């Protein structure tokens, strides 16, 4: 990437062609981007290995397992990713507790910068559906739109259900000292079904909502660069933009344009993940509905 930078005559061309540089606004901190990167890489690892087990009777699962080193490798990477994801989740919880309780940042728990749903979110859902049918104007979303909050809480719900059932099966004989063994039947069932929900939701709904929908297509790089243009902020989060302008805080959030290498990196990683997710989505849907 650095070599392409050096040989690229773009800086001169850019200066000549673009009269006014767009201003960039910082949406995600570095630690938030790292958190997301950890979640999506481990999630992809868990999804690939987990769906291979879930649909182990299909030809593609068998071949994938063979390619990565058989069931032992599948199970190792599944547990490996699970542990990393659990750690990331616990660090996030610890961070929330630290900031919310010890540092008194109550804005984490309510208000426009919180992930906790507000009455406005339900109004936005209603308004969005009205807009879908040309019955009203497009709702003006705040810092986090309702589908973004849903994505966030879906991870909490999924971590709880899949995580607890997964660890119960991992340490089955130990866990069965405290619960009946027949509960492990339920653990396997909900682990698999909830995983199917999570995988299909992320690879179909989340990918569409954040990356593939017109307006963001083909990829929203904000989660890699942490930055979006002022124009984009105005269009996607008008309430937040207006508040920042009115309170005079916008200046504090302005950031330099994302580096070229970072954008390229985001493109590369994002494309690989979106494509892998899409392939897995098609394979699992096909196998699920063919009933094999």
């Amino acid at each position: 990437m650095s070599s392409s930078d050096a040989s690229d005559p773009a800086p001169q061309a850019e200066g000549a062609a673009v009269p006014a540089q767009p201003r960039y606004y910082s949406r995600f901190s570095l630690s938030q981007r790292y958190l997301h990167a950890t979640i999506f890489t481990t999630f992809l690892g868990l999804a690939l290995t987990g769906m291979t087990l879930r649909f182990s009777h299909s030809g593609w699962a068998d071949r994938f397992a063979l390619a990565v080193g058989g069931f032992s490798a599948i199970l190792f990477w599944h547990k490996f990713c699970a542990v990393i994801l659990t750690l990331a989740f616990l660090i996030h919880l610890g961070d929330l507790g630290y900031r919310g309780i010890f540092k008194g940042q109550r804005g984490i728990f309510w208000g426009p910068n919180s992930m906790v749903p507000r009455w406005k979110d339900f109004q936005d859902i209603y308004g969005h559906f009205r807009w879908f049918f040309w019955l009203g104007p497009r709702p003006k979303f705040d810092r986090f739109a309702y589908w973004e909050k849903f994505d966030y809480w879906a991870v909490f719900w999924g971590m709880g259900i899949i995580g607890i059932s997964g660890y119960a099966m991992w340490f089955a004989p130990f866990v069965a000292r405290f619960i009946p063994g027949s509960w492990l039947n339920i653990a396997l069932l909900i682990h698999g079904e909830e995983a199917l929900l999570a995988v299909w939701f992320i690879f179909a709904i989340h990918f569409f909502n954040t990356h593939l929908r017109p307006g963001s297509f083909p990829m929203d790089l904000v989660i890699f660069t942490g930055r979006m243009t002022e124009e984009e902020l105005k269009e996607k989060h008008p309430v937040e933009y207006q508040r920042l302008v009115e309170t005079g805080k916008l200046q504090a959030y302005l950031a330099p344009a994302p580096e070229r290498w970072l954008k390229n990196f985001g493109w590369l990683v994002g494309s690989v993940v979106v494509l892998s997710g899409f392939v897995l989505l098609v394979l699992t849907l096909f196998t699920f509905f063919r009933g094999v």
Partner: protein
Amino acid sequence: MRWSLAAVLFFAAVVPSVAAQQNAECLACHGQQGLTGQAGHSVYINAEKQKASVHGSLPCTACHTDIKGFPHPAHPAAVNCASCHADEAKDVEVSVHVKAAANPCLACHGNPHTIVPVKDPESPVYALNIPKTCGSCHANPEMAKKFGLPNVYSMYMDSIHGFALAKDGLLVAASCSSCHGTHKILSHTNPESRTYRANIPATCGACHAGPEREYFAGIHGQLVKAGDLDAPVCSDCHTAHQIARVQTASWQEKTSATCGNCHKEKYRTYLDTFHAQVSALGYVETAHCWNCHRYHDILPASNPHSSIAPANLVTTCGQCHKAVTASFISFQPHADPRNAKDFPALHFAAIFMDLLLLAVFGFFGLHTILWLIRSAFDRHKGGA
């Protein structure tokens, strides 16, 4: 047989010189290479090989009984092996091979003038040569098609028996005749056949005595003994000609499905388990049917000797799962979420998960499609 043996001994002991003198007369002509009959086929006899053969001490006329002197008839009568080998001939007479050739004896034993003892590695019926000899017909696709037979030769050669015989030269390895017999090969539909269903355990048990004893102690063997021919015999699980080493991943992976041919519900519910998912990825160290139920001496759970009798479950599950407790064994290895009566908690968990998936994808599926249409329309208008 006794009479014919006496005749042979008589010929062998008393008249060898007579035989040799008489044979010399025949070989005066037939000892010449290139001598052909009227129809053009060779009538040459290799004197040395004939003399070294099991029939070497016999005069030619012992078999070619209608030849009294020279000149002899242009078309001598067909040789009747039964005149000496009466018992074998009687067996062949009732076998599936009676019409296999003009002279079925020669189809396996080869040229009658050069027949050597069975223990001679040159013999076509020497233990290591039997598959090739039988294969001269049974590896022929046209012949297999004509009689509706599978091409068993290649299956056998790739089997554990075929490998032991052909690769290691193991004389005790089962070849065709070990299971099918020699002269009296009967159709597997004939109750007297060694390959008739009810007789198969005894046929295999001729070598595999231990498994045979275990098998008859188990429920499958008891059913067969009681005359239930739908119960599985050796070949149902191991196949007849493609018998493989049971430790191989490929065998372990596919054989649970064999049990599922009869135990359909148990197999269907097994497929939902982690045990089955792991097995399908070719991993051997997981529970297949036989890891819990045992293989030859399978017994129902109601039998206290059964591996799945309630009192034995901790031991059975404990083969793989370390430190299992009485609580652990309430795990259901054949749980069925569709069965509300036997698995109510699992059933309602399944319904809850189904509804959750339906609700989430119903809402967001619709949401996504409507959003796509609406924003695509907007952008189209904006672009235009």
